[in-house]
């Protein structure tokens, strides 16, 4: 009768089991690595709790997740052959129907397919251009703030020069001079969007450098690199992070603008590109609203999502804003 009992299996040894979260950091058996992992998990949980309190931030995050998922799943949702101009699946200018939820364009392509496919380029450009501009801005800001004097003055005058230059004009100039590809657009946006970040980071660097622990770091023999990387950067990082999310939104809009002006790569589909095609095809005058509206709304929604996330993040990372709500 004891055949069904799992008596044959030995007692599970207690040693390899995790100490559990109740042990706290003083758990005698816990290894430092495990402690660190626990601590990180707890910090993350706290961060999530604070973030969750911001309803708008949650909406932004949900919207963002949706867009990213759609962009990643685009190859399964859309047949690339359906985006061909010559062998379009439907008839031109069909209003929304069950077959084509957002209607068709002047070639008979599904507008929904175009918007889904276009999200890939728009998001890619948004993220990479932001990465370029934020890295550049943070680097220049920290260097200018740390060294001050002649170095700082020269760097800040260059920043000012970029700041007063009309961003769009500069981006257009860069996009026309360089070869036509997605990476040209990324570069054009990245190179024109950094000055605000640089100014912001420099101001914060100056504030951080005035703190006594910077003097302490110098007293214990730390060099410039040590101070900038270990003491200034972590203190500037929350600001940079919030700035990043806000910049992604404007980068996506910028990409759409450039594509709409016909400076993008004509072979790739992006939201701005779809808008331009719609305008060229006379969608405005012929009242084909389903061709114009979806890409425009997509741009607005993605930008909004990023802005909401950025605001929420700013609130979580800045204790002064956190206590206010």
């Amino acid at each position, binding site marked *: 009768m004891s055949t069904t009992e799992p008596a044959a299996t030995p007692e599970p040894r207690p040693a390899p089991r995790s100490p559990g979260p109740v042990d706290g*950091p*003083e758990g005698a058996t816990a290894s*430092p690595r495990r*402690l660190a992992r626990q*601590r990180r998990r707890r910090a993350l949980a706290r961060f999530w709790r604070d973030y969750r309190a911001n309803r708008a931030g949650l909406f932004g995050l949900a919207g963002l997740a949706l867009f990213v998922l759609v962009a990643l799943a685009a190859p399964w949702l859309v047949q690339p052959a359906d985006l061909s101009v010559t062998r379009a699946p439907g008839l031109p200018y069909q209003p929304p129907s069950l077959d084509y939820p957002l209607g068709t364009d002047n070639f008979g392509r599904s507008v929904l397919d175009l918007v889904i496919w276009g999200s890939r380029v728009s998001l890619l450009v948004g993220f990479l251009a932001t990465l370029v501009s934020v890295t550049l801005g943070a680097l220049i800001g920290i260097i200018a703030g740390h060294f001050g*004097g002649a170095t700082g003055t020269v760097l800040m005058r260059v920043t000012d020069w970029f700041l007063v230059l009309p961003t769009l004009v500069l981006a257009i100039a860069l996009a026309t001079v360089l070869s036509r590809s997605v990476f040209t657009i990324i570069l054009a946006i990245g190179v024109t969007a950094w000055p605000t970040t640089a100014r912001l980071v420099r101001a914060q660097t100056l504030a951080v450098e005035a*703190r*006594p*622990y910077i*003097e*302490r*770091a*110098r*007293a*214990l*023999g*730390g*060099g410039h690199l*040590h101070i900038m990387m*270990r*003491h200034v950067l*972590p*203190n500037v990082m929350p600001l940079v992070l919030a700035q990043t999310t806000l910049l992604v939104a404007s980068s996506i809009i910028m990409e759409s603008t450039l594509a709409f002006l016909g400076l993008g790569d004509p072979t790739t589909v992006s939201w701005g590109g779809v808008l331009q095609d719609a305008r060229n095809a006379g969608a405005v005058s012929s009242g084909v609203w389903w061709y114009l509206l979806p890409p425009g709304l997509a741009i607005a929604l993605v930008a909004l999502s990023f802005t909401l996330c950025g605001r929420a993040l700013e609130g979580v990372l800045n204790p002064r804003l956190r206590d206010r709500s």
Partner: protein
Amino acid sequence: MNYLEVNDLTVTYRTQGGPLPAVRGVDLTVEPGSKLGIAGESGCGKSTVALALLRLLPKSAVLGGRVLLDGEDVLTMKWGRLRAVRWAGASIVFQGAMHALNAVHRIGDQIAEPILLHGGVTRAEAARRAGELLEQVGLPAARAAAYPHELSGGQRQRVMIAMALACEPRLIVADEPTTALDVMIQAQILRLIDRLIGDHGISMVMISHDLSVLADTCDRLAVMYAGRVVEEGPAAEVFAAPRHPYGQALGAAFPRIGDPASRRNPRGLPGDPPDPAALPSGCSFRPRCGVAEERCAHVDPTLWPAGPGRRAACVRVLDGTVEAPAARTAPETAVEETR
């Protein structure tokens, strides 16, 4: 040989209104294992001297004279050598531990920071050492994972002391280590510093405006006024029987518990320290001095011998007219009383 020797140190700040002499020729010596106290009111240049010892002053400061640390002149050192000497040769306990700790790093990492910067040790080794240092200053090693804001003021100051010991320096400069702490914690911290310094055989320069604290902790005492040392000697004697009028005023500014006379009639020092850009002629203390004479306007007194092992910068010392004031209570008991 003296571990620290400061010869004719001058510090002048370049400002828009012209040069501002903050330190005007200071001589100090610290023998190995001994403790020197520097006293003086705010703005007399004592913190400037402390920072000048490791060349930590802003670029606008022009330094003169010599600062010999173990026979090497800090002021002419190359940048790389200076970085090596900082903390490993002499470390600093800063005033206001609250702000001298970086809020975004764990205290264990901050104690390990100088160890990693100076010695080619592994991260694990440095972390182990940080834990040891925390134990030495009376904090559990597990607190290494705490952030500065999770500690009390006294604990933070203990962390700063642990950090100062991290690279086993032979000199510690303590710049007002107990300001912003309440009296009980202050006494604890001073005992801790005293014990650790004794255990490790480290020399110390302690800076404070609190004469009783210095008299209690230090072997020798130097009183600074307007960028100069005006009196120096064995701590107990300088505290009990100051020769310079300024030292006397500073000592008299402390009320003594149980002494009704000092309670009803607190003796302060009228006036403010002189503007370093416009020092009075002759003795710089003359405008506030209660016993100033006509000749004080002409003679700029330097440190003259004033008894065995003592020096004071007052003309009255020179001609022996100064008499030791009515003997104050011995410093040890006086300190116990004020606590």
